[in-house]
């Protein structure tokens, strides 16, 4: 049966769309389906590191079904105790930062949730005394924690609320939710407070995503990020008056409260999350590039790196807009986490990102730049294209690691774009590949985030391996085609929830070829790729003995009975002026595909007279053989000479030369000898490495 909305619900919708907009709109027309809309009034209690919040959620049922229950994320409950799913999976350590097991725990508690059946304007709902108001249904008794992923009864990160009456398709619901929360101290797994600094991420009751398969509302896992619907956010943040506040969206207003505090009003449209930070210590820097205002909130001990941060942020904005598409939001805030609070660093929220640096970080160590470019990249790969990070993390982190490496390369390449320090030069993509080669075959790329073999495997398959496979695809399709793929993906799926299949569809369509053979292997299998050159000889053809020798050489080799099957390929060049006196060489080279991953590849063969032959091998068979009878020797064979296939785990075995070249081994041996002699003689130099450790 098709649902026809009643005239009342239509009027109601009209009113709902009008009521969020007491603020001056940012966009003349909504850019997204504004499904989940929040107005939140939150007061920060600095001594307790607690939040006292009132939330009005207006949620639209855009599905075709009547919905009998709602599901919410209560992310902060992941840090409630050491028995939550997050804590069990992580062992209390996230990205090297440990939760303070004595007093660092955080939680969120909803103490009342009511359904406002006869809504007035949002601000009256915020200020009304819920238990006394007419037309209000208390849902508090209907709340219960569920654990859809692992059944862990100690996990309280997902809340279910049974509705007294199902919500019809096209209908909307207005909820008033009162909550208190305590932030982890110091910040842990992206969120928390420390001394005068607070970074509030995943801090408010947040509704799940209703999909064709029902509620998609996973528990908060160690190896997982998020998934949410777009909406409009109006958030009032009350903090001590001397605090500088940064948040998602635009700051519209700030007012002094009678208690001498400041109430900051932030408004954001077409975003699917909201985070904020505050500290009296922030030093503010502002600049603008293209159509984006950039605001830096730096710690006082890092102000000498503000310029660095700003340059990276501008470069990120410019590269993304020039390459991939429009960044629709008017502003970006970059937050520098406090010392001792780095657990809140390196994270992305709509229009607000956190970086992270250390005093004395040398210019040649471009971790700050990389992290800013990375976190800004999420504005595209997660905030515009709101993929499901719980289930397909690569769509965000992986594509983002790929674009990060491309931008780093464009900005600081070709050598040492990530590290260029004391003669050591490492590119971003080399880092990614180094991680990929070590953990290539534990999991397919696409898999629910908490089901990978290990945290490392999640990391490799969500970040590094996708970066490597997309760079390989870029080399295969060419830069321009790949760019068009990315641009089409962005423009087609912005403000939606794209899936891996959507990306594959775009890549195939734009490149004009079915690329499922590539993605099936690259995303959905654990196949690894390793081409090698396995055999090379070149020897003089013996002086003619016995029967008619001329006939043998002038025949094709096939006729001479040397062809052993379709796998082998023979090429021979016999010069016109060949005579029995010409010295001829029999050369043979064999190459192998050692992994199960099949990928077309170039092969290069170099002869002693300087001739270079190129062959293109489809890589379908396990090996290929080249045989030549020529007046010159075959000196070297090399698979993938331009190193286009980054998915090849071992490039060292890709080539073979006829004669060994000892000079590389000689040089590295003597360098090793010298380093050993040097350190034996002056071991105290090792102490200098402590200077570098300052940065971490």
């Amino acid at each position, binding site marked *: 049966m098709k649902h026809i909305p009643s005239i009342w619900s239509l009027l109601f919708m009209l009113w709902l769309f009008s009521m969020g907009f007491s603020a001056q709109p940012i966009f003349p027309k909504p850019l997204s389906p504004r499904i989940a809309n929040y107005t939140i009034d939150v007061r920060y209690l600095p001594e307790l590191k607690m939040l006292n919040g009132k939330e009005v959620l207006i949620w639209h049922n855009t599905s075709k079904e009547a919905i009998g229950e709602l599901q919410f994320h209560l992310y902060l409950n992941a840090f409630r105790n050491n028995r939550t799913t997050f804590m069990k999976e992580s062992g209390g350590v996230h990205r090297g930062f440990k939760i303070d097991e004595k007093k660092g725990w955080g939680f969120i508690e909803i103490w009342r949730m009511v359904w406002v059946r006869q809504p007035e304007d949002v601000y009256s709902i915020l200020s009304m005394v819920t238990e006394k108001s007419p037309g209000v249904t208390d849902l508090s008794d209907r709340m219960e924690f569920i654990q859809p992923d692992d059944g862990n009864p100690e996990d309280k990160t997902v809340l279910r609320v049974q509705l007294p009456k199902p919500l019809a398709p096209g209908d909307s619901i207005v909820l008033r939710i009162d909550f208190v929360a305590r932030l982890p101290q110091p910040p842990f797994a992206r969120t928390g407070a420390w001394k005068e600094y607070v970074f509030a991420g995943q801090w408010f009751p947040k509704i799940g995503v209703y999909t064709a398969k029902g509620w998609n509302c996973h528990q908060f896992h160690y190896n997982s990020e998020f998934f949410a619907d777009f909406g409009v956010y109006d958030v009032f943040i009350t903090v001590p008056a001397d605090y500088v506040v940064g948040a998602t969206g635009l700051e519209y207003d700030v007012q002094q409260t009678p208690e001498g505090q400041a109430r900051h009003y932030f408004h954001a449209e077409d975003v699917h999350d909201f985070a904020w930070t505050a500290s009296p210590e922030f030093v503010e820097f502002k600049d603008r590039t293209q159509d984006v205002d950039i605001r830096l909130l730096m710690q006082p001990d890092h102000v000498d790196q503000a310029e660095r941060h700003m340059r990276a942020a501008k470069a990120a904005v410019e590269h993304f807009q020039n390459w991939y598409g429009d960044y629709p939001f008017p502003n970006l805030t970059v937050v520098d986490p406090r010392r001792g609070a780095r657990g809140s660093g390196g994270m992305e929220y709509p229009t607000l990102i956190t970086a992270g640096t250390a005093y004395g970080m040398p210019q040649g160590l471009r971790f700050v730049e990389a992290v800013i470019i990375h976190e800004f990249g999420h504005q595209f790969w997660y905030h515009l294209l709101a993929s499901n990070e719980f289930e397909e993390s690569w769509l965000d982190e992986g594509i983002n690691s790929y674009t990060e490496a491309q931008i780093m390369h464009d900005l600081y390449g070709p050598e040492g774009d990530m590290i260029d320090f004391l003669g050591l030069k490492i590119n971003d993509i080399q880092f990614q590949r180094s991680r990929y080669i070590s953990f290539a075959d534990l999991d397919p790329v696409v898999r629910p985030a908490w089901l990978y073999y290990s945290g490392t495997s999640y990391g490799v398959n969500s970040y590094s391996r996708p970066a490597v496979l997309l760079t390989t695809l870029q080399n295969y399709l060419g830069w321009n085609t790949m760019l068009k793929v990315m641009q089409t993906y962005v423009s087609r799926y912005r403000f939606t929830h794209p899936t891996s299949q959507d990306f594959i569809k775009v890549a195939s369509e734009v490149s004009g070829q079915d690329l499922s053979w590539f993605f099936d292997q690259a995303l959905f299998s654990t196949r690894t790729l390793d081409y090698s050159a396995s055999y090379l000889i070149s020897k003089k053809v013996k002086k003619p003995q016995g029967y008619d020798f001329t006939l043998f050489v002038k025949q094709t080799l096939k006729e001479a009975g040397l062809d052993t099957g379709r796998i082998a390929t023979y090429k021979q060049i016999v010069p016109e002026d060949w005579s029995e006196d010409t010295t001829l060489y029999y050369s043979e080279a064999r190459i192998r595909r050692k992994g199960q991953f099949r990928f077309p590849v170039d092969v290069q063969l170099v002869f002693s007279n300087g001739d270079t032959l190129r062959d293109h091998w489809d890589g379908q068979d396990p090996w290929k053989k080249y045989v030549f009878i020529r007046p010159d020797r075959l000196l070297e064979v090399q698979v993938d000479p331009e190193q286009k296939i980054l998915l090849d785990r071992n490039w060292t075995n890709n080539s*073979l030369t006829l004669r060994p070249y000892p000079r590389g081994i000689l040089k590295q041996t003597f360098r090793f000898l010298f380093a050993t002699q040097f350190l034996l003689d002056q071991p105290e130099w090792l102490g200098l490495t402590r200077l570098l450790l300052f940065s971490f």
Partner: protein
Amino acid sequence: MVGKSFRIGLKTGLGQRKLVLLYYLASLLAALPVTLAFSQAMGSFLGRSLIARDLGGHFNMDFFFEYLFFGKNGLATLPFLWLLAALVYLLGLLLLSGGLFAQFYQDRPYQAQRFWADAFHHWGRMVRLGLLSVPVLLLLLAIQFLEVGLQRLIFGKQPYEYIAYWGRVVQMVLAYAGIWIFSLIFDFARWDLVANQQNKTRYSLMAGIRFVFSQFSAAGSLYALFLLTSGLLTLVYILISGLLGANAVPAIFLLILIQQIYMWLRAGLRVGLLAGERELLRQLGSN
């Protein structure tokens, strides 16, 4: 006085070719087993690949990461061999010092038989002295932690990062000062040991400590001059070796030569410092 000791030390260091050779060989021989193991492992990993040719130029990070992962079995013994090298080198230096200190102390020219007789004669005592002075080294190294306490007292537990940063620089300077003072103490303890044929090494250690602290400005200045020279030498090495990055056999051989000349000169400075110390002792009239 210090200037003269430095000049004489430097002259002796460059002049005593056989002694310098012995010191040079000590580091070369100690480093050789681990180097050969490394070379063997890398050679078998590289085989007849083109990377083996390309590594004659710049180091290739892709290769490095692949080697760390796929060649890790070949690298497994290296840490052990490194420790062995350090031990061999340490014992070797202590052996050589018996011969050298005795020769310098008696103002004799180098004479092989005599040298080795003295070397083995003093070896046991030198090792004992070395072991005995470990607590002194630890104590001197611990001075750096004064900074930690002071910093916490003034700035609290989690000060601004620039305070922590410069605090750690100060810590490092203190640590180096500790190491350098220890080297001086150990040297002058050994002078006492050969001068007095001291069997009770703790007396030598005490004598070394007494001497260094009573003649701190002279001994320290001499040491600083040699340190400075060594720093300059390293700077020159870095500048020259930077020019020899080309992937060509002559450049590679030249680089190897420069590296070993640097190590030779380092050995020369080591001998020179001891000769300078001997001269200082003479001038202070405590021979």
